[in-house]
């Protein structure tokens, strides 16, 4: 047990939490934008995979990490757009369309990986680039806190910055208001002249952009290669994190950190002699428990409001 607390209170662990939170946070923000527009985006998982591969391929091609990141985000946006095309124009059920995109992503990335790298498992034969790490002057030198907060991949900082940007976008800009209006009540929104389809397109593309950042981080920051199905359900965990975070950017950030904590814990606990199968289960189990607590809380709240209205 002592060993356990030593692990948790070490600065390496704190650093690790932020490191593993990053992709979940990006995906959670992606889930948030589309949810605000009234669309459940379960294609986040597939979008992250596609972007992760795009980042590796284009950074290897041009030898520029930032061009790889740029293309990863573009591919994320395009995939979000195609989800919009199928669900909004062709009227495919958005969940089925997203399942289809996840299929295409899971098989298609392996297919393309084999074409460009000659391997079905990992992209190590490609000389892909990694996005730089940033040391923050000032904070860097604070004992205890410095090693936790400084020296992260640039995308980690962008992720936490995005929380604020997305909050500002959704709550302080006209477009954000339109997105929320469409999600709240699409008939009311369209009656005052908001194009529901166009607004949802924008939301899905932005959702794809966020997942694109998350994917790029997976293959160009978290690790320096692409491997098959490397997102391992993070896109799905993000959906739970978004719901538990009360569909608010800051709430989403806190729940993402919670999942990041459990994810980091499962990485660290492998040092202790706990069966790896149990340890790997932790993030998913935490998600389910969190989801139950959140929804129980919400039903109680709804009941209370209902009773108040009666009296």
């Amino acid at each position, binding site marked *: 047990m002592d060993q356990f607390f030593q692990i948790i209170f070490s600065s390496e662990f704190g650093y690790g939490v932020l490191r593993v939170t990053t992709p979940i946070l990006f995906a959670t923000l992606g889930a948030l934008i589309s949810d605000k527009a009234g669309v459940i985006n379960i294609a986040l998982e597939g979008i992250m995979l596609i972007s992760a591969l795009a980042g590796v391929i284009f950074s290897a091609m041009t030898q520029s990490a930032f061009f790889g990141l740029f293309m990863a985000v573009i591919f994320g946006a395009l995939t979000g757009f195609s989800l919009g095309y199928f669900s909004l124009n*062709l009227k495919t059920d958005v969940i*089925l369309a997203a*399942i289809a995109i996840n*299929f295409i992503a899971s*098989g*298609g990335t392996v297919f393309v990986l084999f074409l460009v790298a000659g391997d079905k498992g990992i992209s190590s034969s490609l000389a892909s680039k990694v996005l730089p790490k940033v040391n923050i002057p000032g904070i860097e030198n604070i004992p205890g806190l410095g090693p936790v907060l400084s020296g992260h991949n640039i995308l980690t900082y962008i992720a936490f910055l995005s929380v604020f940007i997305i909050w500002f976008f959704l709550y302080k800009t006209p477009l954000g208001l339109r997105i929320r209006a469409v999600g709240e009540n699409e008939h009311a929104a369209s009656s005052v002249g908001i194009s529901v389809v166009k607004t949802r397109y924008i939301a899905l593309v932005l959702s794809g952009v966020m997942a694109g950042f998350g994917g790029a981080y997976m293959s160009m920051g978290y690790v320096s290669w692409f491997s098959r199905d490397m997102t391992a359900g993070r896109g*799905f965990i993000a959906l739970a994190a978004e719901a538990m975070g009360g569909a608010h950017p800051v709430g989403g950030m806190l729940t993402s950190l919670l999942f990041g904590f459990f994810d980091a814990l499962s990485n660290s606990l492998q040092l202790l002699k706990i069966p790896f199968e149990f340890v790997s289960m932790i993030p998913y189990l935490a998600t389910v428990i969190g989801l139950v607590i959140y929804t129980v809380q919400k039903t109680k709240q709804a009941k209370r409001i209902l009773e108040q209205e009666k009296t």
Partner: protein
Amino acid sequence: MNKSQRVFEVSRTLLAILISLFLAMIIIFLVSETPGKALWLFLFGPLDSLRHFGNVLELMIPLLFTGLAISVMFSASQFNLGAEGAFFIGAIGASFIAVNWHLPPVIHPVVAILWGGLLGSLFCGLPGFMKVKWGSSELVSSLMFNYIAFFFGLYLINYFLRDVNAGAMVSYPFQKSARLIKLVPRTRIHFGIIIAAVMVIITTYFMYRTRWGYRIRVLGRNERFAGYAGINTNSAILLSQVLGGFIAGIGGSIEVLGLYRRFTWQLLPGYGWTGIIVAILARNNPAYIPVAAFFLAYMRIGADIMSRSTDVQNEFVAIIQGIMILLIAADSFLAGYRHKMVVKEARKTQSGGAA
């Protein structure tokens, strides 16, 4: 649905399949050095020997079960994706009984399969329970449960059933009495295909000829209407999820007892996901599940045969399958024609009524 509409739906599905196959052809011609050979093997490889055709039928068995399971769960408009985990956990449950218990031949597999089915129904019932009780999204919770089932199942196998002398991560061998008999010599087609056929008939009967099946379908069409009509929507939702899980669970049990001598999976087999495509192709109608399962199994085996002797990788099937779902589930795909047809029919009946 009247006859001409049904004809329309079938031809629409066929057109979607044709477009996807055409795309498959384009992909093959783009990436392959020997496109003719690759295409030939993909389309006709499964027919070139009894063994290959046997492979198609072997693969069809799990797809029948997961396809049926998902068609029942989706019929209630519940996006429970737990069939994958139910299939896996069912297989694990059956393996425990097949290894540890000593029972007479016919009874042994029956007990093992029913146990697997029971675990499966609990597994898919849980997201359904959380949905009706607290309103948690069954989609998210079932996805998480799949991962939990996977890691927990591996733990059970590796710590309680692992054969340390086997040299790989596998369980102890199953008792002979637990294994399902093979039906066709020189293939691995097993008794499971008969159980699957019976399940198709029972499920079709249940969904279209019984009160509960009707309730589930009404609920799936419109939950509010079902509530007004006096249907207990919560119990109908739960029933559909439990039933779906049961079918997926016995599917997993039958798969391990029919094809293997030990439990050998180190990954989720993915049949739950493919089952979604099966159910979509069959329009959630259990009676069409066999056609859809056969088609997908044929395509998979064709791709496997192709990838073994050409330079095209079998993963491209996933791309084709994805496009197929997108087109078939797209309501607006060819909607103009349907609209014209409905208008024409309406005119006809109207003038018929006036005369």
